[in-house]
């Protein structure tokens, strides 16, 4: 008698397991979490971090030694150097982001789940931007050192670091486009680096344009990255139009990446 009653219990448990409870978080959050964790297991991400801090460290050391206690503590130097280096390490951080999923075929699985391309791209972008944010936060160590040996302008530093954060977001979003465009990570990195470099040099290119076309000079200058950072944010001047410029670049790049994934899928 008792044996029979006991037999029923595990059955009830097994039935319960079949139930699927739907209604978790948004899909982009799942993509973000996986991708963000991925950066802490990726040798390239560690390589980028190592190279970045080696270079900024040497630069910072040279600056402090050269200043020799005479020059004012320049708090905007390091974020400016980071924005310059972005043409190298933004493509390295984003090259595998989408190219790898395309090549491995996992994109096909993801695109048949109840998730649209935009959620996928946003999750991916936020992950790399979050990793970059950590790099920026770590680089605040230079500001701490400066504060110990001098009196840096903290207002200017806040503008410069905030600007470097936005600048990085834009550079990462732009280089992400190339990861969607090609399955080849090297090609994606190369095209991304070239694009960021061109946008970085737009300022210098504008200077070379004959001055009888001032409107062209302005357009080229304003399209480039430097005009919105070097003379404004890096000097501690926060302008709404510069913030908008970087945010616009991010939104546009996410949109273009989404479009490329859709078109590539639709063309089969």
């Amino acid at each position, binding site marked *: 008698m008792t044996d029979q009653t006991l037999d029923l219990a595990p059955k009830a448990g097994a039935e319960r397991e079949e139930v*699927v409870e*739907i209604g978790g978080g948004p899909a982009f959050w799942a993509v973000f979490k996986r991708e963000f964790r991925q950066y802490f297991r990726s040798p390239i991400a560690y390589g980028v971090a190592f190279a970045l801090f080696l270079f900024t460290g040497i630069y910072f050391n040279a600056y402090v030694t050269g200043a020799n206690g005479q020059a004012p503590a320049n708090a905007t130097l390091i974020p400016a150097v980071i924005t310059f280096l972005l043409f190298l390490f933004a493509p390295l951080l984003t090259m595998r982001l989408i190219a790898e999923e395309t090549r491995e075929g*996992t994109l096909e699985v993801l695109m048949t789940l109840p998730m649209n391309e935009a959620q996928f791209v946003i999750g991916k972008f936020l992950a790399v931007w979050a990793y970059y944010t950590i790099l920026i936060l770590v680089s605040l160590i230079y500001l701490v050192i400066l504060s110990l040996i001098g009196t840096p302008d903290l207002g200017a530093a806040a503008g410069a670091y905030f600007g470097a954060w936005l600048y990085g977001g834009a550079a990462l979003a732009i280089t992400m486009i190339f990861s969607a465009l090609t399955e080849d990570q090297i090609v994606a990195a190369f095209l991304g680096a070239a694009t960021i470099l061109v946008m970085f040099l737009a300022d210098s290119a504008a200077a070379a344009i004959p001055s009888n076309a001032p409107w062209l000079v302005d357009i080229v200058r304003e399209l480039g990255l430097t005009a919105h950072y070097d003379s404004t944010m890096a000097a501690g001047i926060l302008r709404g139009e510069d913030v908008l410029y970087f945010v616009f670049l991010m939104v546009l790049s996410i949109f273009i990446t989404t479009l490329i994934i859709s078109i590539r899928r639709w063309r089969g």
Partner: protein
Amino acid sequence: MIEVEHLTKRYGGFTAVNDISFSTGAGVTGFLGPNGAGKTTTMRMLTGYLPPTSGKASVAGFDVFNDSLQVRKRVGYLPESVPLYRDMSALAYLMYIAEIRGVKNRRDRALHVLGRVGLQDRADSLIRTLSKGMRQRVGLASTLLHDPDVLILDEPTIGLDPRQVLELRDLVRELGQRHTVLFSTHILSEAEQVCQNVVIINRGEIIAQGSPSALRGELERGGRVFARADVAAETLLPTVREIDGIIEVEISTDGVIATPATPEIDPRPAIARAIIGQGWNLLELRPQAVNLEEIFLELTRHEAQGAADEEAEAHEYDDDDENDEEVSA
């Protein structure tokens, strides 16, 4: 559960799928055809991955193009290449897919489906350390997470060793009792064992559909028989041809296959008498067994030049390259 009406997919000038229509009910439906026939393209359209050029299809009551999201919620799809993240554990991968699917009880579901494919003890193994057969099962498990109405499996037995193939077939058969399964293969005997229904596609067009037994019956009505004597098939052929009521004779390896004028005629007694009458010894005389393989060859004989190649490819555990399908993709 799956309704396809006049579905067409063109890539530039190439028509991968040409005006196909079929429908499937509960149980396992086999989607049969040689490589490059349009199986993968059709499945990609059914899962909402590829938009059709024209025509329409609905899965679980929803249009695959207009209600793609609803379809995706109700379908589990396993692509032929079984894409997985190699650096994740089986459990972590399943929980990731479950999270994107919005499943709340992710861990329970992931463990449950792992149990269902018999991999509960490998939950924490990295996917790259799993054998091909196990990966295939992880892929299959990932399609079960949300307990879908419809499963679409693209050549799930490809590249497995014979024992794994048998295990996977059993699993698919078992899943067919609970889910509607569309299962593509180019191995005919596999479809015969696993499927209640088959849809045969070749060069983007459906050439036959029905239950394996109905399709067999259709051809068996021909009443064809195989005869073998202790003389060369070439010698035997004219003798059999002269028998009344036999309209066609062809050589098949070391004997002949004779087709009677009407299915009601059993030509065996006449053939036996003719052979004995010639003074030869009758070695074998039997109805020509018809399996899907032969039905398939029969149906594709007139159109496909490559039919002979397909015969080789239809060989059981042959998993050589699937690139034909990729060209169309």
